[in-house]
């Protein structure tokens, strides 16, 4: 165990040495990485894809005497084999058949569901909340005026601010290129404000994520490898 953990620590340090400057140690680690990655992918594509997705279904269909299913699987395999034409300069175009079948099928399949997911439901979410209550609710503003507090202010303004934000951002995206329409010009500044708040928040999060990755490595060194080393040497 200690051997493998130490290998992992040394390789991590080799990568970190890049922070000082590019050096042979880093290059070695980098190429080692590519080698393991490609080797791993080859093994997995063979065992998990070719065996499990092509060979296994066919053998099971034969075993269970499902001949109709078997015919369908064989047709698919024959279509798939057309990909091999890629290896020949002359017959390369044959590989367009399997490509257009898969690309066509998934494009068709995506149309309705993408429309509903990204557009219909998102627009609905800009009109009503998940409980079906309208986001532009004047009564909430009345409640706030009657009993002012942070939470009632939040309830009163958050919905309208969200609706306003989505509208100005959409106007900004679709019409902002050299448009003198007063509506479009009005939307410009607030849209940028929303976008900058969004991207700023996104940057804060991104920074957080990058640091976490480094913490993960340090955690491995100090909380896993180091205790193991002490344990092995001490006992």
């Amino acid at each position, binding site marked *: 165990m200690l051997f493998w953990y130490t290998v992992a620590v040394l390789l991590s340090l080799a990568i970190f040495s890049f922070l000082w400057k590019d050096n042979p140690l880093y290059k070695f680690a980098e190429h080692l990485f590519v080698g393991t990655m490609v080797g791993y992918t080859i093994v997995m594509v063979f065992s998990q894809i070719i065996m499990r997705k092509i060979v296994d279904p066919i053998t099971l269909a034969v075993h269970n005497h499902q001949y109709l299913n078997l015919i369908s699987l064989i047709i698919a395999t024959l279509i798939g084999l057309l990909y091999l034409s890629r290896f020949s300069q002359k017959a390369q175009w044959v590989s367009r058949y399997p490509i257009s079948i898969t690309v066509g099928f998934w494009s068709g399949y995506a149309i309705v*569901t993408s429309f509903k997911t990204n557009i219909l439901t998102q627009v609905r979410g800009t009109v009503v909340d*998940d409980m079906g209550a309208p986001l532009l609710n004047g009564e909430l503003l009345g409640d706030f005026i009657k009993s002012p507090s942070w939470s009632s202010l939040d309830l009163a303004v958050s919905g309208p601010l969200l609706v306003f934000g989505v509208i100005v951002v959409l106007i900004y995206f679709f019409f902002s290129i050299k448009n003198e329409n007063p509506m479009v010009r009005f939307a410009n500044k607030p849209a940028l404000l929303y976008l900058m708040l969004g991207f700023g*928040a996104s940057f804060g*999060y991104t920074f*957080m994520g990058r640091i*976490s990755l*480094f913490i993960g490595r*340090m955690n491995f060194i100090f*909380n896993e490898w180091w205790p193991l080393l002490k344990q092995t040497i001490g006992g």
Partner: protein
Amino acid sequence: MKTPWYEKIASVDKKILYVIMFVVVMIPLLAKWTYNPDVMDEVQDIYDEVEEIYAYNLANPDAPMGILFSFDYGPSTSAELDPMMMSVLRHAFLRKIPVVTWVAFVDSIDLGKRITNFIAKEYGAVYGEDFVFMGYPYPMTAAVVAFGSDVRKFLVKDFYGNVSTDLPLLNKIYNYKSIGLIVTVSGTSMPRFWVTYANTLYGKKIATGTTAVSAADFYPFLQTKQMIGMMGGLRGAAEYEKLVYELETELIGTDTEMYMQSVYKQNTVQKWDTKVFTPGYTEEELREHISTRMTARTGMASQAAAHFFVIFLIILANLGYFFKRRAENKR
């Protein structure tokens, strides 16, 4: 002429910044500080959903609901996402909820296998009865859609080469009707994909765990409840970790080590498949199982230190910029 201070700070060697960063992150780790986060609504919602499935399963022991876990990330973002996956898996196994796991990328097959088995082992879960690992169900879209009717037909064998129809768990849970929740933990846009195919087409509840980098992108889906909850970055992981830690303490007490060992003490039946994991622990393994219960919360202490350091840097750099401009304007 003496260089003014704002010129000096603008030309600090970046190696100095790197060294300070190293130290800032290291100190909390060495001092073993932990950070105790407040749990946000979007994380609590996932926890509550899992508890609801538990309550449902208590009322319907013959037709239990399962959880589908999708490892939609690779080793590069393990540091943020492993603790999330581990915490939610622990929650499911603690509540004896049937678990199906798979991975979305060829790079992550061993990662998904290792973590699934690592957590299953802690609770003595039996492969094929309490959990299954389906490997890499390529292509993902087809697999997600196939789960709508019968996943055993699409994936005729599991990762280990067992025929799917021979696995008792898959004979109970083979389509979305018996899946109560889908947990996607991802460093990419996979959660959007899950919403598009599993939520929109099949009305399935999606719980997302994501790297902090992509967290902001998914907030629109939270507001519409297309995702029932989200854990964002290490902070989200720390929150779930805390919730599960509290639950575990309540259910099995504080001595987790003893509990884990006791699972394998009664050697009555050889029910654990050694292909999946070896029953029993070495001392090193025990320590690893205990320490992963704290990963996110210890990490968060370093995270806080690093954030304060960078905020200090940003303020310093902006002060320098401000004074430099003022000096230039005077000239």
